């Protein structure tokens, strides 16, 4: 099997693909949105056409609300991000955006989150990701409990985690680019996307592992000890990569439709998911199985 034969190349490629987002994380840093640090997002539309952004910015500069950003949105809207606004500050901001009533505005969306709630959400996000990973490993160790040779079942879990790390870091890298060049901020939806990727990636990995499990069982039943673990893995990969591709392809199409037609709210969500689906498919074929082999090798060589 091609993948197993050249596994070192693929593992190196994956390592590079994983290291880049980690470096970017340190260099650029993640920009937390108001969900996590608190603040206000106000979206207003101008039914009669929006004024020049500089005019709007000049007016807001005069307000005592500290740092803010105003970005154009769609054809005739602006989105303003500020600190957590109280009632008076909000009214003042609205007045600035409408040039004190000169430009007709419609308040499309206002989202204000206090700093304490933001901190709480942040903690929840960490716990959610860690708990999900923990439960998945435990479940996989349980589901593969009957195949403890030549690799013990919890190692399937460990390999899944390593694949998961890969599958989460790559979309995070994509998001870092979005955040650097398009002003995207980490919000609850992004965390949801990461967790959905966790689910998908593990699905793909399980399809491969399940086949390895089945082929190992067949091997023991037939006492066909001449087949090595390497060959079993290669055979299993050969039997599954077609369906791995098809399942991922349809999922990719679904998310692509969400990206193109789903509107602005879920657009970044869909883009991160697309990156995750690609990474997840790649990793289940090119990383999970080779890693499993690597782990089993180390054990046999030590013996």
């Amino acid at each position, binding site marked *: 099997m091609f993948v197993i034969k050249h596994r070192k190349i693929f593992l190196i490629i994956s390592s590079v693909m994983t290291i880049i987002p980690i470096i970017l994380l340190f260099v650029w840093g993640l920009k937390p949105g108001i969900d996590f640090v608190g603040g206000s997002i106000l979206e207003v539309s101008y039914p009669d056409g929006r004024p020049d952004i500089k005019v709007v910015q000049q007016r807001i500069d005069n307000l005592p609300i500290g740092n803010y950003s105003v970005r154009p949105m769609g054809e005739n809207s602006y989105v303003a991000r500020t600190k957590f606004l109280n009632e008076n500050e909000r009214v003042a901001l609205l007045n600035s955006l409408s040039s004190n009533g000169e430009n007709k505005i419609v308040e499309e969306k206002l989202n204000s989150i206090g700093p304490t709630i933001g901190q709480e959400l942040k903690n929840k996000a960490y716990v959610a990701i860690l708990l999900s990973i923990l439960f998945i490993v435990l479940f996989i160790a349980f589901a593969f409990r009957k195949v403890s040779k030549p690799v013990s079942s919890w190692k399937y879990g460990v390999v899944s985690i390593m694949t998961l790390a890969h599958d989460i870091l790559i979309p995070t890298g994509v998001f870092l680019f979005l955040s650097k060049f398009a002003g995207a901020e980490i919000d609850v939806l992004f965390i949801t996307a990461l967790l959905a990727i966790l689910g998908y990636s593990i699905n793909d990995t399980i399809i491969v592992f399940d086949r390895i499990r089945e082929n190992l069982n067949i091997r023991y039943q037939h006492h066909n000890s001449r087949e090595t673990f390497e060959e079993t893995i290669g055979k299993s990969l050969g039997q599954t990569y077609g369906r791995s591709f098809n399942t991922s392809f*349809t999922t990719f199409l679904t998310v692509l439709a969400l990206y193109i037609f789903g509107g602005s709210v879920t657009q970044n969500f869909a883009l991160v998911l697309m990156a995750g689906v690609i990474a997840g498919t790649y990793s289940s074929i090119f990383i999970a199985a080779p890693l499993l082999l690597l782990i089993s090798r180390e054990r046999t060589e030590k013996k």
Partner: protein
Amino acid sequence: MWKIRVIALILLIAGIWLGFFLYTSEKNPNSSFHFKLGLDLASGTQLVYKADTSKLESKDVSSSMQALKEVVEKRINVFGVSEPIIQTESGGLGNSDEKRLIVELPGITDINKAVEMIGKTPLLEFKLMNKNYTPTEEEKKNNVISRDAFLDTGLTGRYLKGSQLQFGQKGGFANEPIVSLTFNSDGKDLFAKITKEHIGEVLAIFLDGQPISLPVIQQEIPDGSAQISGKFTADEAKELVRNLNLGALPVAIELVSTNSVGASLGKDILDKGIYAGIIAIIIISLFLILWYRLPGLISVLALGTYIVMMLAIFKLIPVVLTAAGIAGFIMSIGMAVDANILILERMKEEFNENRDNMEEAIKNGFARAWLSIRDSNITSIIIAVVLFWLGTSAVKGFALTFGVGVLISMISAISISRTFLLAILKKNHGGFIKFMFGIGIKN
């Protein structure tokens, strides 16, 4: 053979009937089974208040929060907002002492108005009856009381410390409900002065400009506590106490988060979400049919049944649909497709090994694909549960539709698809059926 065909037919008819139900209940404006849309889709305002419970003893916290909820509910109901949702919540994760009040107001997009509605303290006033005022004929006829019939005393709910329901203890008052009032120190002085100067007169209690009680002053009351005894039932007295206490919220609240979505934006998000979903379903159906031929078509039918089942569940429970919730549902459709692909691929394998026994191939395909479907879907459900447990309302919406979707898809993939496929089998299948079952590229 015929048994399975009958079951398949019943399933198909049930699916069509469900689809019909979805359509008619949505079109019929009087139906009670409309989709419930979240605030981000239907437009409205969500307000989150932090309740200051630091001064309360821990045993009183939950009853105070309940009282707060009732007060706010009552205030909102006065304004006639349709289906407001008012809930109390504890801050999670090491922050569980923090109590919050979440208010969702569908259709209200003006935050000012919403905040006012809740933050507004009802006006409680004490007024003396004007002895010199004679009601006009018209007022008598319509039984209305003119504002001129009473004189302001300056004593309002601002001076009230609290109100309680008591029951009479002795003699003729036994078990008679009594509403007791306690004023703060300023109120005490003012009340003492009024009661001293106006013994025998009616001191009316007004709530939001309406007289709710007309007690007669019996004697001077210097200690800042008053009792209203009269001919009311225990329920009426309870109501009065609650109204009086409305003058002050039982717990001080502070606005910590607001979220409002305008009507046009919400509709836009909804339309686009539905559009994306339909496009995705069409593309996937085409792919399944072109790649897997007849079994692919069967899968599409099974998926269609799955989708109407899910939508019916959303209507019947009902599940409040949000943008994130719709995304979760679309993703669960993706998972359902995955399960079908796994089955079809496995069937293809079995079919290639033994071209003559298709029934065996179908049954084995399902049995062998089941393990990987089960394991992969269980991990998805684990994630959904974690998300639901920890998440905020938006994430909860995603987790609920995704989790329920995966669970139902797991069941439908192995039951509905299987029944449909076995139902179209013929004992003596010709080359055409074989071609129709020849799946994708030849291995």
